[in-house]
């Protein structure tokens, strides 16, 4: 019989909003985002750190939120796909995925865009190898990656031209 466990109080900033929450120790970050905060743009594909459908930014770094306990995010700042656009204007990465037909069912897309976000915030002129490596941990079952890579190239170009202002 599982024993009742004390909940843990945490404070996190999600998409710019501060949230004080109390979580079960076993609760995963992805569950917190989806179930408690209703941010359903972050998805679950594999439960075991392979597919990256659950990718979010934690303190600017792409993490797989199915593999982070909610309490581990305490004190951290999180960006999910819902927080990527700014006052209704799509981020260049979002636009690029649309323009390049970089998605089909769209289930993997939030994760892929956040992995792209992390790459492009560090690397202005990524090579094809950089692009492929950046999404090595993101599985897409629909696109065969070709238009995803194209989208990443479009995004890199757009962000370079705008001098990274949007990032």
């Amino acid at each position: 019989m599982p024993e009742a466990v004390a909940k843990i109080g945490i404070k996190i900033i999600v998409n710019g909003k501060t949230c004080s929450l109390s979580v079960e120790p076993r609760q995963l970050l992805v569950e917190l985002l989806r179930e408690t905060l209703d941010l359903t743009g972050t998805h679950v594909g594999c439960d075991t750190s392979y597919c990256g459908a659950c990718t979010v930014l934690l303190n600017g770094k792409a993490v797989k939120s199915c593999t982070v306990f909610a309490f581990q995010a305490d004190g951290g700042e999180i960006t999910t796909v819902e927080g990527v656009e700014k006052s209704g204007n799509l981020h260049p990465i979002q636009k690029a995925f649309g323009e390049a037909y970089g998605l089909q069912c769209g289930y993997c897309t939030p994760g892929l865009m956040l992995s792209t976000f992390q790459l492009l915030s560090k690397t202005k002129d990524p090579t094809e190898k950089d692009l492929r490596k950046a999404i090595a941990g993101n599985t897409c079952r629909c696109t065969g990656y070709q238009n995803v890579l194209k989208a990443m190239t479009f995004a890199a170009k757009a962000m370079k031209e705008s001098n990274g202002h949007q990032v």
Partner: protein
Amino acid sequence: MIMSETQKQKWVGKAVPRKEENRLLRGRGKFADDLKLREMVYLRFVRSPYAHAKIVNIHTSAAEALPGVVAVLTGAEIASQTQPFIEIGPDPCAKIKDYPLAVSKVRYQGEPVAAVVAESAALADDAAELVQVDYEALDPVVDAEDALTDKSILHEEAGTNRIWNGVFEYGDVEQAFKNAAYVVQIKKMHFHRFSSTPLETNVVLAQWDNKDDRIYYWCNNSFPSFAIQFLAAHLGVHIDRIRVETSDIGGSFGIKITSYPQMAVCALASKKAAGRPVKWVETRSEHMTSSAHGNERTFRDTRVALDKNGVITAIASRHIDDCGAYPRYEPLGCVIWSQVFAGVYRFKNARIDFTQAATNKCPVGPNRGYSRMQHLWFLERVVDICAHELKIPADEMRLRNYVRPEEFPYTTPNGCVYDSGNYPKMLEVAKKLIGWDDWKKKQEKARAEGRLIGIGIGTTLDSGTNNFGQSQIVNPGAPFSGNSQGANCKLDIYGEVVVAVGSCPQGQGHETTAAQVVADVLNISPDLITVRTGFDTERNVHTGFSGTYASQFAVSGLSAVHGAAQKLKKEMSRLAAFTLESKEDDVEFGVGQQGPELRANGKSINYWALANIVNVNSAVLPTELHEITLNCRYVWRAPFKVPDKQRKYGNLTLTYASQLHMAVIEVELDTFIPRILDYVAVDDCGTVINPPIVEGQVYGATAHGIGAALMETCVYDAVGNMLTSTFSDYTPITAVNMPKVKYGHIETPSPHSYSGAKGMGEGGAAPIHTISAALQDALFDQGIFIEDSFNNADAIFRAVVGREHGQAANLVKLEKRA
């Protein structure tokens, strides 16, 4: 009709941006697991660790006693309230009793035995662990040919593991062998079990509402009209009492067609939980072990007759298909392969003895390229092996055997009609894209250095829009034939154009392509059109065939949309002619200052005003216009006949898209890793509705094929443990394994669809054929024969170094007649 229609088209054929993007890019997609309902509870399955065992006892009291547990269900309880699922096959298959939870025995690892419902998902997990099941292990059978010995029987009520058997024979096979200049024999080949597995797993939210006694589903099943037919019979309810809604679906590739057993359990659990909504979200491991896999197939004792020029004149072979523990959608696969009986080739004489066996593995389901890809792979292997034995280059061999461009529409030996195509042209385009002559030179040089480089060709078909009459070939009593799709096109009260379709897309862009079609009919922009996709029984547009499967939307779905739009246009013209005092023929459609409008007689009326008359100002309508509703449902029916069941003869599919892929592969000498050096995909799906969408489908299908050929396989050990139940074990292809694909296309419009389009999307598993061909080319000189469709480094190592399989000398024989 085709020409005049296509000439006028402004939107069809264009790279119109997808309407779906706005929500999907912003994290606002509505996927099944995103929905929560008041009083919702969570379901978790208790699953069998055994592949084959008797259930002696199920102890549920500890789980039931856990605070927060709402209900526990077992198979015995379900069996007492329901009918077993319909079986599609005749006896002995029809005798099988298939319930959504195992009743007295389990037949594959991961089979659900009980279901626990609790206040939270975590509690349901905890409670499921408290359910204790006592099993008595039975002998498992994991190999289809072993299963056919019936030493250990899965379904005692059927008395055998042989699910289906039939002989498909056409022409004069014996005579062709007598006249042959060469006979090639291939002892055994094997097509492996894999799953094109979607990224989103199965999700069911069900409510058996105790207020109106109806069953509500919000789920991601990809063939809901099929699911409700199974569910209504199983649950013993009027089909209208079941409402199914789907919204965004995170991929299916056919796999989500067979989620109806889980849908049944969720509804029954909701009933037991006094009508509270029950949600089940499948874990990845559950998905890999127990949703559905693709059909595994073994090809035995193949004999091929050829004339002196290497033209194939006859094929005789014995095929054994493995459907896993329960037939479910099977034995439909036992006939579906025959849609492409002859592949892209002209041979007239053939005999295929086809058997399907049940084994203690996950049930199979329609998986992208369903049942045809296995056969097309077989034919491509046959062609390459014969070419090699007769020392004819692989490209030349194909040219000698392809159906010729001037022969279309081409009737195959089993009566299928290939609508259009040009295979030699595709070969030419592919050669140019890959730089064939150049690679041939490089290959020669590399070989001289001892490197293993192969160039492979795969030609394949993606047959779309099924004639369900083929079900009568597997079961003469089956009540299905033809194919249809419904759509509705209306001018809503304020003049909005709203289209509804019976499909449930998973990324194929149906909202966009449907809007393109309607935009052309009404001469407005697709932006002005709202398309409601996702299935909803209550929208009343579906037919018994509605869903998204089997490469058909461009034909069946868009024909229905086109028909509905035409109907609406006609009504709008009549109404405008009345208000504008003109002749119907003089009414023009266009966009004016106030948005979309109709013009005639120097006057105009906008959509709002038209809709207003019919919906809220109807006293002004003369009686002869009362039949106008501006709400037009249209059902498109495919022009099929019931096939001849005895001869197994007739047209089984409406359109035949084709693909030709080419690959250059090097097998690394020290690691045996097969590396793709160059890859080309050429596609022909007739008239293209939206080029980037089609291109995207080609890339996606190519990735699935490359993944399946080199990385993805469902592995079972000798006692039926599934060894690839997580993504880390199954290793779905990633961006670092996926080569750059050079895309080319030709268009041979189909005479069988209104737009000239052919269904596409499954892709015929071209990469699997192509990679096998390239590896074969690389390894023939090592005495290796590619006998399996799955070839990772380990498999190649075991063949080349271990000599464990694929020894050409034992498997392939050439007989030269005088």
